[in-house]
């Protein structure tokens, strides 16, 4: 952050120093804000890992910190996907765990004994601060530091990002958003400077992004698109080449180093766009070069020659690409990426992707919830980016357009939209403030006493932030022209600044608004900002802080805590054998392995659809068939989540149709229609017999009727259909305090005795008696 003021006149040096210190201070405060607004979950609840996936990441980090990096790469996890297991080192994006592991290691190396859990809990808030600083850098490259500060402040508290990065939300996105913004910043920086140094850094940042999140494909498609856009709009420059070509070569090489990506970096279709553009930019560079050395006439001849050859080459390349796509092991596009291009793809073909709520398209209110007033500021920001349009501003425009599309497909990608929206809104806010404050200043200066140009100039100098921001706005385009002749950032700022001041004053004359209008508009803008802040704090405190493993409800006699999940995981962990297998729906797989340390059949990694379908089939089958399936999988315990007693809506009965669908997708004897009465999903007396006899129903409602005598389900708001029944192949071994988690044990197989069963039974029992009698000293 510390930028040295260029040696110059003392007053401007002072002003620069003051501005630098002020913006550094503001940035520091923004970082503190970004960190502390995410602590609501720790203060309101506790310092604990949240939800599902973070528990897996936490477990991996524990393994990493205990066994070291080499063991981590080779880790074959036999505690999950029993009996298949999972190669963790090769199937996980290691960025997050390596980051937290490194932080933990560094802290412990200087004898700060923080636990792995604490480090994991606070990784996301720390990286949110980094992300807001990266946003500052990126926006500063686009529209100057005023816009940068505004964008950083907006990003620090944008609800969409908060939802994924509160303390405890230890997920890939926590570091990936920082990596994303920082990669974009370095790309823009390279584009603006043409420095190979930044290009190399950019490739490294891209590598970090690849390590962190599958969303890196967004980068490797967005940047080529921007390059293509620049070429098409005639903005090709050597800087563009420097910004792009090293990224593709180095970035792809580095990406291939990450085990989970490996050869996918060159084999899957998500990356082909970048290679295509890589070829195009070389062709374009060649054309520019030839154009430079040939006369216009010769050039025309060369163009016709090259175009005809080029077409042939292109055809060959396209043919090769098509062949590659057809022969690539992943079969071209992966399911998630396909559902990005065709939003209805998942619900049509892959129920397992569609069953995850965060893969659904978002609703309109969720836009307002997640980016709030930014939604209204974005268009203004886009307009501001077009006046004037530079390489950098065209990039952010492209970024926002693409991310709006993707967020419309999948609610999870709202997260990618949030930084773009913040950058745009930051630009919009900063430009609007520029215009309003400048016109107020101008109007005041004109009404008080008619000041001449020089005094007007000094009065603008009094507001360093305003000055420098608009100064750098112009710098963007001006530097773009001058950049090639200059090296090193320190030198180029000053000459860019001086002419810009004059040009700005000239421009300001045009943009003068009436005094009253400016003041009212300023106040309205401040109100808008205040509304945004209030909304963000509310969202952080109320909407996004719940860790979801512990629920609370406010009742008349104070706060009531529902800690049933951990109760049952603790029970499993302490009171079952260490090698017992626990079957549950895949949602609870990660938590079971992390908190209960028991082997699970399926977990949230959902890589094997057949395996999940097997569990789904078992849950949808009648008791005996289910027992057989589970027994064949060595399952000892079955865990179901049941919310009917206290009204917890996301329980297994509500997820049950997905089990039926996924199970039926592989095992056709499970038919969704059998579980629906006239197309309605119901569990009351109108429910179908298949529904009332399936394992999930029985395990959820076993002896439920004894609680209130009627069996009233508070989630479905109805009395259950089948009330008194016995379990023959399962026995209840644990039910948590509020009945949210119920654990059943598979009864052992009965001995195959026919006819004489009764006699034998008698005999064995008497035998037992005599044995006991022997031990009993009273006889």
């Amino acid at each position: 952050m510390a930028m040295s003021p260029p040696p110059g006149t003392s007053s401007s040096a002072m002003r620069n120093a003051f501005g630098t210190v002020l913006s550094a201070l503001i940035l520091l405060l923004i970082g503190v804000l970004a960190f502390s607004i995410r602590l609501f979950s720790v203060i309101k609840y506790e310092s604990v890992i949240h939800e599902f996936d973070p528990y897996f990441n936490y477990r991996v980090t524990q393994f990493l910190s205990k066994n070291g990096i080499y063991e981590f790469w080779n880790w074959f996890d036999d505690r999950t996907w029993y009996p298949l297991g999972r190669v963790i080192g090769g199937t996980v994006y290691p960025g997050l765990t390596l980051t937290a592991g490194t932080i933990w290691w560094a802290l412990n190396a200087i004898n700060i004994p923080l636990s792995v859990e604490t480090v994991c809990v606070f990784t996301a808030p720390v990286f949110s601060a980094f992300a807001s600083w990266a946003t500052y850098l990126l926006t500063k490259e686009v529209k100057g530091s005023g816009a940068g500060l505004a964008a950083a402040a907006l990003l620090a508290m944008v609800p969409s990002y908060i939802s994924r990065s509160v303390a405890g939300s230890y997920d890939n996105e926590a570091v990936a958003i920082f990596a994303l913004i920082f990669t974009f910043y370095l790309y823009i920086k390279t584009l603006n400077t043409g420095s190979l140094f930044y290009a190399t850094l950019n490739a490294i940042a891209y590598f970090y992004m690849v390590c962190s999140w599958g969303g890196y494909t967004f980068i490797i498609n967005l940047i080529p698109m921007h390059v293509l856009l620049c070429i098409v709009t005639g903005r090709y420059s050597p800087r563009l080449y420097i910004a792009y070509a090293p990224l593709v070569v180095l970035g792809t090489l580095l990406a291939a180093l990450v085990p989970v990506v490996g050869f996918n970096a060159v084999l899957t279709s998500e990356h082909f766009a970048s290679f295509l553009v890589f070829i195009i930019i070389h062709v374009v560079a060649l054309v520019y070069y030839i154009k430079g050395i040939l006369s216009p006439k010769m050039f025309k001849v060369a163009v016709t020659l090259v175009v005809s050859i080029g077409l042939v080459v292109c055809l060959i390349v396209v043919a090769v690409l098509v062949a590659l796509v057809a022969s690539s092991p992943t079969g071209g596009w992966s399911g998630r990426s396909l559902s990005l291009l065709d939003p209805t793809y998942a619900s049509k073909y892959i129920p397992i992707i569609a069953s995850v709520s965060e893969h659904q398209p978002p609703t309109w209110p969720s836009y307002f919830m997640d980016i709030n007033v930014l939604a209204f500021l974005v268009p203004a920001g886009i307009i501001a980016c077009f006046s004037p349009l530079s390489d950098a501003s065209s990039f952010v425009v492209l970024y926002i357009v693409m991310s709006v599309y993707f967020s419309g497909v999948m609610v999870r990608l709202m997260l990618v939209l949030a930084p773009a929206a913040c950058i745009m809104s930051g630009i919009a806010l900063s430009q609007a403030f520029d215009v309003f404050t400048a016109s107020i200043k101008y109007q005041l200066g004109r009404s008080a006493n008619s000041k001449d140009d020089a005094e007007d100039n000094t009065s603008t100098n009094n507001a360093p932030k305003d000055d420098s921001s608009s100064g750098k706005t112009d710098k963007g385009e001006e530097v773009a022209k001058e950049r090639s002749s200059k090296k090193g950032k320190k030198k180029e700022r000053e000459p860019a600044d001086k002419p810009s001041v004059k040009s700005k004053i000239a421009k300001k004359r045009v943009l003068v608004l009436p005094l009253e209008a400016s003041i009212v508009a300023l106040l309205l803008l401040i109100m808008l900002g205040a509304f945004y802040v209030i909304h963000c704090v509310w969202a952080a405190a109320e909407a996004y802080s719940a860790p979801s493993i512990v629920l609370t409800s406010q009742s008349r006699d104070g706060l009531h805590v529902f800690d049933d999940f951990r109760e049952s995981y603790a029970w499993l962990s302490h009171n079952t054998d260490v090698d017992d297998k626990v079957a549950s729906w895949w949602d609870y797989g990660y938590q079971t392995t992390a908190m209960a340390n028991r082997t699970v059949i399926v977990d949230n990694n959902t890589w094997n659809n057949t395996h999940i379908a097997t569990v789904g089939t078992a849950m949808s089958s009648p008791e005996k068939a289910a027992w057989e399936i589970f027994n064949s999988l060595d399952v000892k315990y079955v865990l179901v989540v049941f919310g009917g007693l206290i009204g917890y809506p996301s329980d297994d009965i509500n997820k049950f149709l997905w089990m039926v669908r996924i199970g039926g997708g592989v095992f056709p004897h499970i038919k969704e229609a059998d579980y629906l009465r006239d197309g309605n999903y119901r569990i009351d007396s109108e429910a179908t017999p298949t529904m009332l006899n399936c394992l999930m129903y029985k395990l959820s409602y076993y002896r439920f009727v004894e609680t209130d005598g009627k069996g009233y389900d508070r989630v479905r708001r109805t009395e259950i259909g089948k009330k008194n029944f016995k379990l023959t192949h399962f026995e209840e071994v644990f039910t948590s305090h509020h009945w949210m988690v119920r654990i059943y044990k598979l009864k052992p197989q009965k001995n195959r005795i026919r006819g004489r069963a009764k006699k034998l039974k008698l005999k064995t029992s008497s035998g037992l008696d005599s044995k006991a009698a022997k031990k009993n000293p009273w006889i």
Partner: protein
Amino acid sequence: MAARNWIFAVAVAVAVFLSLSTFSSAQDLQIVNAERRIDLSSHIVKAFLTLKVENIGKDPAADMLLAFPPTQIKNLAMVQALAVTGKKKKKIYLPLDVKPSEQPDAPNDAGYFLVSFATPLGPGETVTLEVLYILTHSLEPFPVEITQSESQLVYYRDSAVVLSPYRIKQQTTFFKTPSTRVESFTSVEPANRAGKEIKYGPYEDRAPYSYAPVIVHFENNSPFAVVEELVREIEISHWGSLQITENYRLTHGGARHKGVFSRVEYQSRRSISGSSSFNALLAVLPPRVNSVYYRDNIGNISTSHLRTGFKKSELEFEPRYPLFGGWKATFIIGYRVPLEDYLFEAPDGRRYLNFTFGCPLVETIVNKLTLKVVLPEGSKDPSAVLPFAVNQDLQVKYSYLDIVGRTVVVLQKDNVVPTHNVPFQVYYTFKPIYMLAEPLMLVSAFFFVFVTSLAYVHIDLNIVKK
């Protein structure tokens, strides 16, 4: 020494198969009257033994032996003896020194404790002793496994007569059971049962090492809370507080739970369902305790109440789930107390910590207690003073920004019962200047960072001068 020689002389002369010391002691002392009350109401068996000892030998006796059968000796958590002087109402109790003692050729591996009299007992004199001994793991559940609706029955095995190397003229033993439900008890005439009490005796004139095994089979639904391992860490900070962290591994030591656990039965028919299980524990913490937390390795446990008082604080808490027989749970309790209540300066200039040994949970057995006292960095010459024998060890721990590490005094004891909650002291020397080491380190680190950035700003690293 003279007595020893005499013993040898007698031994050689008599040359019987009885052991030397046994024989000689029996010659020396006899117990005129023994009354034993054994309290079986919780899983910690407390036995109160009142002995009236008479010296019938010719020489004054300096000490006497208490004998325990080998089945009890390994479960014996503590033996204490008091000498009673004075008549009723004005009784004065004088604590006596009790030491485990090895006796050669003890019959059937009996174990011994040596009680030293305050003043040697002259010939013909009598003294009244009050002996308290505490047994753990001595109630054996039978049946070994019970279902949720059954109540817990246990065996207690002991002798109807007091095992003693001395002749006992007259003795009585009382067993107090927690409820009136007693399935059976061995009859050694005269023996009878009235309410919660079973009385054996009085028996007249029993020879040394008389033994009459009895088994009492009775209902005991008191919480069998056994802490398998407890690690208490007491961290002294001279900045003003004492941080205590306690790691518990708790188990229900009673009859194992068998088969189904039905929540609906547990919740609706609480009186008959799971009567031997427990789900509430009470920890007695020091007064002025603050920053109390109760959690396990997957997060907070939200079921606890703290009542602070002037004498003591009480933390009432529940494990995550009710504990049935054989079920386990782990948890951590941590709290902070002000330093001035527990850290003092000895007259010789050393500092000492005065803190309570043992486990804060009431009515709990601790199988293995490890108490770590983490002294501040720079402390020297640590030494611990305890009223009973423990294993002592020294370790080094690195905590926040330590360089040389903190000395840790590790005290380790097996089979700890609430009676062990007595003060102990750890002495050490410490120079207050060490307190400033870490702040100075931080200050210099920040100073260095600022100086470096200052230098970086003013250095022009460009090769080409502009």
